[in-house]
């Protein structure tokens, strides 16, 4: 006997409910479309721009292959070739691979979680516009001889001012640094979205694997990206002001850059691969018409890979003179990461092998099979280069170029094309052509292998990477010619895909092509601009397979939140583990503020690159003002009371404190800031190990007396106390407490004074940042402190303004909580800095 299914809303829905929902989620029209924040609109824009960068960087790749087709070729000059390979690698890694995966997160996650949108739609839109403006300007530098030339990893000393004069390297440092901020904004959105906007009943262990993959992807971004942000800050500061972090004769060390860069750079490979693996884990069961074999083991593999990937960075530095035993640790970890990767591969093969009927061979499945082959080859050569003696032989040769293209194109580009063919019916009126798709696949698969397989041999017989040309008679000619021919075949496959896209891709939110694959997950529910009409109650991992009527029930409004009870955009926030409904989040709709903030922030960074400091500062002020306007509109207050979402559950429409999504976002941001600071602490200690002779008290002026750090610490404690007191003094709604503004101002003042005291104390000793690496590191702590102090001062001012306008009280207190959370973190960071900067040299000296 069939179990009687209980539905959250059994009664017929009111007549005007759907119209109200449509009105709340209506898209802006005409030129105002650029202010849209719906995840489907900005998700498509995001993936479209990322794909554009893939095409542009691909063209650069083909130019490089053409230059290398024959020996002693002079199609492009040596200098331009250096710019081309730098921009090719940088664009593929920073402007295509990571953004494409974030774009898929923005586009697919709300659909898979049946949320109306991600929790911070304007933050997503901000990240996307910042990326578009910053990315396009960065790429365009190749057209006017301003592109960087130091390779995508920009190693000093080559990239120091002495060896790379001009602004080329600065475009990389400021442009990429800025784009990473955009990636972090996207990661915050994804973490809070996955943990807090799942549909009721979708516990962590019922989440689609793609959601797990994106959660780990975003967590990895939070830990990895700050390391390279710090590295870009250090190098840019050294280039601009001469603080010698990387200059060996002043106690710096170029290897510090490599440590910081690869602590980001190796996880970056998995940051790109894990979401792609998540996509494959969604496509394979649909084509096999059965649940994924080993769901829990795949979760183990994703988490394990995420962790292990942070223990591999030194395998990029095996030849730099690190002690043999340290090499052994990283070699072991590099081999061990093959285990979780292998678990995933075997799970997919097992799912394919145990298909309900024959595994369906469609264009998406062809790309998945191609991925399995190519990625496995890349994985095997990965284990080879994890072996130190072999790495010594093939380091900086074309063998490595072959290896990482097998991993990256196999591990990310092929799954991405599978994704295009698989999910385009969700957002387009028409599917892409299956017939053309097979042509695209075979051209790309053959082209890829013809291009990159010979490079293994080219590398083994000695051809180094990044050479502009090569002499005749070394035995490299035929292999290079074959690789070049292959690159044209690969390019033809991609071109055919673009043609198919133009012919068939017709974006829509209401009249999509439906679910041609009969898949089991929620993104295939009928949708509109509001996503699903009602938010389904989920009881399994493949809800559409377990309840074939789910689509109809959702469409009829039988599940949770079938309308827009507050009259605004909203979705359900659920608990992070079991996904039980907690409150309704009211989300902002279209607006200009985030757009203005993004464009002017990008302008500020780019103008700094060309040293137009005054205009850059004006742009920064405009951007901050736009952020304040944006933030002002977010805290709606508890005025709408509770709403009934179905099943007799009434939820509040406002939430403050540790349950609120704003609190979670701030907590995640603080984790990012702490990652940045930990990278700084590592750098400080690293440079001390390398050059203890320049450290105080022997190699630099003596430290300030104990009174300075003590006074600074007291200021921090006083400010924190003031912040805590404000929480206790917040009045009930409608009440007044005149002491709140001065108390907040006092807290901000204490923080600012503590920052200034720390700088002034060192300045008085005669220590200067350009003196040696010790001085540079001491003042760098204050640079990092300045960032959080500035943010705290702005947020404290914001809270004061909220209070003065009657928008801050004991109930409506998100504005205060955000300021307080960051303040506590800032005080903690500065106290830790005092211990390190004032305590460590005394201890070690």
């Amino acid at each position: 006997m069939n179990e009687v299914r209980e539905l959250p809303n059994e009664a017929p829905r009111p007549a005007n409910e759907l119209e109200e929902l449509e009105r709340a989620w209506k898209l802006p029209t005409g030129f105002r479309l650029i202010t849209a924040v719906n995840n489907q609109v900005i998700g498509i824009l995001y993936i479209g721009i990322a794909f554009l960068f893939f095409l542009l960087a691909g063209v650069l790749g083909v130019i490089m292959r053409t230059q290398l087709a024959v020996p002693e070729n002079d199609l492009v000059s040596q200098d331009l070739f250096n710019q081309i390979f730098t921009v090719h690698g940088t664009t593929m890694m920073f402007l295509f691979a990571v953004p494409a995966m974030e774009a898929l997160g923005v586009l697919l996650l709300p659909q898979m979680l049946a949320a109306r949108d991600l929790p911070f739609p304007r933050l997503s839109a901000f990240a996307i516009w910042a990326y578009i403006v910053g990315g396009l300007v960065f790429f365009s530098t190749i057209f006017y001889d301003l592109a960087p030339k130091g390779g995508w990893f920009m190693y000093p000393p080559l990239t120091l001012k002495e060896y790379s004069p001009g602004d080329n390297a600065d475009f990389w440092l400021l442009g990429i640094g800025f784009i990473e901020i955009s990636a972090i904004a996207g990661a915050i959105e994804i973490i809070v979205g996955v943990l807090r906007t799942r549909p009721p009943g979708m516990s962590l262990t019922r989440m689609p694997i793609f959601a797990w993959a994106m959660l780990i992807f975003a967590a990895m971004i939070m830990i990895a990206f700050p390391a390279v942000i710090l590295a870009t800050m250090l190098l840019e500061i050294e280039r601009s002001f001469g603080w010698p972090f990387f200059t060996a004769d002043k106690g710096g060390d170029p290897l510090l850059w490599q440590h910081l860069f690869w602590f980001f750079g190796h996880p970056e490979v998995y940051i790109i691969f894990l979401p792609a693996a998540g996509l494959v884990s969604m496509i394979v069961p649909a084509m096999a018409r059965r649940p994924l074999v080993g769901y829990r083991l795949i979760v183990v593999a994703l988490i394990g890979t995420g962790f292990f990937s942070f223990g591999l960075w030194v395998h990029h530095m095996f030849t730099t003179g690190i002690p043999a035993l340290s090499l052994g640790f990283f070699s072991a970890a590099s081999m061990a990461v093959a285990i979780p990767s292998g678990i995933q591969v075997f799970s997919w093969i097992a799912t394919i092998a145990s298909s309900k009927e024959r595994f369906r061979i469609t264009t998406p499945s062809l790309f998945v099979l191609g991925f399995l082959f190519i990625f496995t080859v890349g994985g095997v050569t990965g284990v080879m280069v994890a072996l130190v003696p072999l790495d010594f032989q093939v380091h900086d040769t074309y063998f490595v170029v072959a290896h990482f293209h097998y991993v990256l194109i196999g591990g990310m580009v092929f799954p991405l094309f599978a994704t295009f063919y698989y999910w385009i019916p969700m957002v387009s009126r028409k599917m892409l052509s299956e017939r053309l798709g097979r042509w695209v696949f075979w051209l790309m698969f053959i082209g890829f292998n013809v291009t990159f397989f010979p490079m293994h041999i080219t590398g083994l017989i000695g051809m180094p990477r990044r050479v502009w040309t090569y002499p005749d008679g070394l035995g490299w000619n035929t292999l290079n010619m074959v690789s070049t021919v292959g690159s044209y075949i690969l390019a033809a496959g991609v071109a055919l895909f673009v043609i198919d896209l133009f012919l068939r891709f017709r974006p829509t939110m209401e009249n999509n092509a439906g679910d041609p694959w009969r898949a089991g997950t929620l993104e295939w529910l009928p949708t509109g601009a509001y996503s699903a009409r009602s938010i389904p109650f989920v009881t399994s991992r493949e809800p559409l397979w377990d309840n074939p009527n789910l689509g109809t029930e959702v469409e009829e409004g039988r599940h949770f939140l079938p309308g827009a009870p507050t009259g605004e955009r909203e979705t359900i926030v659920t608990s992070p583990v079991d996904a039980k409904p907690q409150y309704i989040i009211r989300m902002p709709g279209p607006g200009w503020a985030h757009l203005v903030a993004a464009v002017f922030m990008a302008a500020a960074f780019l103008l700094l690159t060309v040293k137009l400091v005054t205009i850059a500062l004006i742009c920064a002020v405009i951007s901050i003002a736009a952020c304040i306007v944006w933030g002002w509109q977010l805290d709606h207050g508890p005025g709408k009371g509770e709403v009934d979402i179905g099943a007799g559950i009434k939820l509040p429409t406002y939430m403050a404190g540790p349950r609120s999504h704003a609190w979670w976002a701030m907590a995640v941001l603080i984790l990012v800031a702490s990652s940045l600071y930990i990278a700084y602490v590592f750098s400080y200690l690293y440079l001390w190990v390398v050059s203890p002779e320049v450290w105080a008290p022997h190699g630099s002026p003596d430290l300030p007396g104990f009174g300075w750090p003590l006074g600074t610490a007291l200021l921090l404690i006083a400010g924190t106390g003031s912040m805590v007191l404000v929480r206790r003094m917040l009045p009930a709604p409608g009440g007044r407490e005149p002491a709140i503004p001065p108390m907040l101002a006092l807290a901000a003042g204490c923080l600012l004074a503590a920052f200034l005291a720390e700088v002034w104390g060192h300045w008085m000793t005669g220590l200067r940042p350009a003196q040696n690496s010790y001085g540079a590191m001491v003042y760098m702590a204050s640079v990092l402190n300045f960032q959080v102090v500035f943010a705290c001062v702005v947020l404290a001012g914001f809270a004061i303004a909220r209070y003065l306008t009657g928008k801050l009280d004991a109930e409506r207190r998100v504005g205060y909580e955000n300021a307080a959370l960051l303040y506590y973190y800032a005080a903690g960071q500065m106290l830790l800095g005092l211990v390190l900067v004032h305590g460590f040299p005394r201890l070690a000296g």
Partner: protein
Amino acid sequence: MTKLDDMRRPDRGNMLAVLLFITAGPLLWGLHLTIVYMAHTAVCALAASPGAATAILAIVTVALAVLLMLILLDQQRFARLLKVSQEIAERGSYDRIAFFLTLLSLAGILWSGLAVTILSSCAPGR
């Protein structure tokens, strides 16, 4: 009680506890790598004492491996220690995920630690 009724009850899952329970193994693996790498680098660079470096690495490896084995042997006790509720949905799945991650981490620690028995400390890598 129906599944829908369960949605009306408060969530007993503590996110931080569940997160720590699942990732305890990988976190200890990370701690192992951090300690052995930093200790080895610092001792070799500053004291040039291969004996001390080897001893530190061996002690850290054995201590963390034993800790992970204890977690594997009495996983439920570890869960109670972290206050992971028995009432969260599909609790068994979390147990299995945590078990295999701990096992994977133990393998990682022993695999890395093995290097101490093969290579001499502080010898230059090239």
